[in-house]
């Protein structure tokens, strides 16, 4: 019994190691030769997407800006809704703040990646600022989440607001060659996405609304 148990357990272990290694391997002739069904269970139960800032660390920061229009038609300043979240996340390590920052920082990132370059128009020069067609934006799932977020921000900052507007900004890091000119406040704004203002309803602030 001991011997049978040894061989079966070792065979399973080796199979699992091989399946994990195959799943992690980049496309190669070995991977192509093995049927996917043999290691597809790894994807379902042991999925991992571990790159640990590799090969290219995410060095471009994508940020959201929101401004609100009050009932008299007065627009507020553009606000960075992540500011408070960043401060709280770094002040309190244990608690929900770090993960809340994950949630709000994903909104501009996904908004940027989900709107393909061909969906952008009227792109300016210099800082490349493009507009997004309202119909295309309305069909975008992340845009709905961003609108809900804007609804909350406007309710918190300006009370009752009539309309809100969103912008997505991309900031590139300081190049290593210019490190001597680097300051904390100066940042390279490289690209921008602009959306048309939208009305805020009472239901705004709810993702499912």
């Amino acid at each position, binding site marked *: *019994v*001991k*011997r049978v*148990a*040894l061989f*079966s*357990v*070792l065979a399973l*272990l080796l199979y699992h*190691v091989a399946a994990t*290694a195959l799943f*992690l391997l980049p496309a190669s002739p070995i991977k192509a030769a093995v049927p996917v069904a043999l290691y597809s269970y790894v994807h*379902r*139960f*042991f*999925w*991992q*997407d*571990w*790159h*640990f*800032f*590799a*090969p*290219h*660390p*995410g*060095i471009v*920061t994508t*940020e959201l800006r929101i401004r609100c229009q009050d009932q008299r038609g007065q627009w507020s300043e553009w606000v960075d809704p*992540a500011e408070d979240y*960043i*401060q709280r*996340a*770094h002040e309190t*390590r*244990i*608690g*929900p703040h*770090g*993960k*809340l*920052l*994950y*949630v709000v*920082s*994903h909104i501009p990132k996904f908004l940027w990646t989900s709107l393909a370059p061909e969906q952008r128009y009227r792109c300016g020069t210099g800082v490349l600022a493009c507009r997004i067609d309202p119909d295309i934006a309305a069909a975008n799932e992340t845009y709905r*989440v961003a609108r*809900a*977020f804007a609804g909350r921000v406007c309710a918190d900052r300006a009370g009752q607001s009539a309309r809100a507007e969103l912008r997505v900004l991309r*900031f590139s*890091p*300081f190049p*290593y060659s210019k*490190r001597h000119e*680097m300051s*904390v406040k100066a940042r390279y704004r490289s690209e921008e996405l602009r959306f048309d203002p939208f009305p805020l309803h009472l239901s705004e602030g*709810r*993702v*499912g609304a």
Partner: protein
Amino acid sequence: VPELSWLRMRGRQIVNRIDAWSDAVCVREDHLTVQKLLRWAVLGWLLVYTASLAVAHGEFWGPNALIEPARFDASDWTHWLTRLLFAPGVREHYLWLVAAQLLLLSLGLLGFYPRVMILGAVLTNRNLLNRAWTTTDGGTNINELFLIYLALMNTTGRPVSRALGAVRPWVVGASNCALAMARIQLSLVYLTAGLAKLDGPLWQNGTALFYILQERYYTDPLVGPLLLRHPVLLALGTYSTLAFQFAFPLLIWSRRARPWLLLVGVGLHLGIAFAMGLFFFGWMMILSYACFVAEPWAVKALGWCREVKDLAPSLRGTGDRQPRAREA
């Protein structure tokens, strides 16, 4: 015939070796305390993590969370198992799932049917992670993988009962192999991360950390700018990270190098936890090292925990006695 006797002797040697392996894998339980320590580390981390997020539960799992909901297909049974919080009529009751996860983890930590509790936690955790998918990172990932391996391990700290008879070698074998797989998985994590970095020009020229620390969301506003003033230090940090990730899967199997390697790893992940603000991720990686701790060290660590536990009631006792003395 001399050839035959030589063959017989050789055959007996091979059978003896197989028996020795069978004993090592399916009979001996050399890592009972390590496995218990790993259960505490993995379940403890998840309990603290879930409780931390539960403070703002609606923002992560509620129907109005700022996270895109995924598709739910009622005809797909796997969706009922892992995407329960997208099912109509269920999503509003997400707090039951959070409460169930906290209860399962607490009972698992206390050692009440640990395998059953861990299996339950695997399911509740997958559902909660699927709903709050933008909050997942390497920490939640490695925790989930280790939960699955823990479900196969004997984490009670006591040997598997001899009354199991013929089933015992299978239970012990599965437990030992699950621990081995947890160790291999951790090594593969570092190996794949290291290999992927070789492709990146910023890792090759030593400026990766210089750029990473300019990322606004996850760089500590105090530590980041301070480190950015020392590019040579950052280049050394970049190459040390690469060196560590390649050294880990090779040298971790050497008993002499292991403690030093784990010490460097703890330093690296504390740096990530504090300088980069990836707090839960950094701690999960450090806690996952429990699978590489030597048995005597694990015994010491648990003994120390017991001492702290024993100290707590005596402290409480002193507190109780004081008011009575005053009353007297």
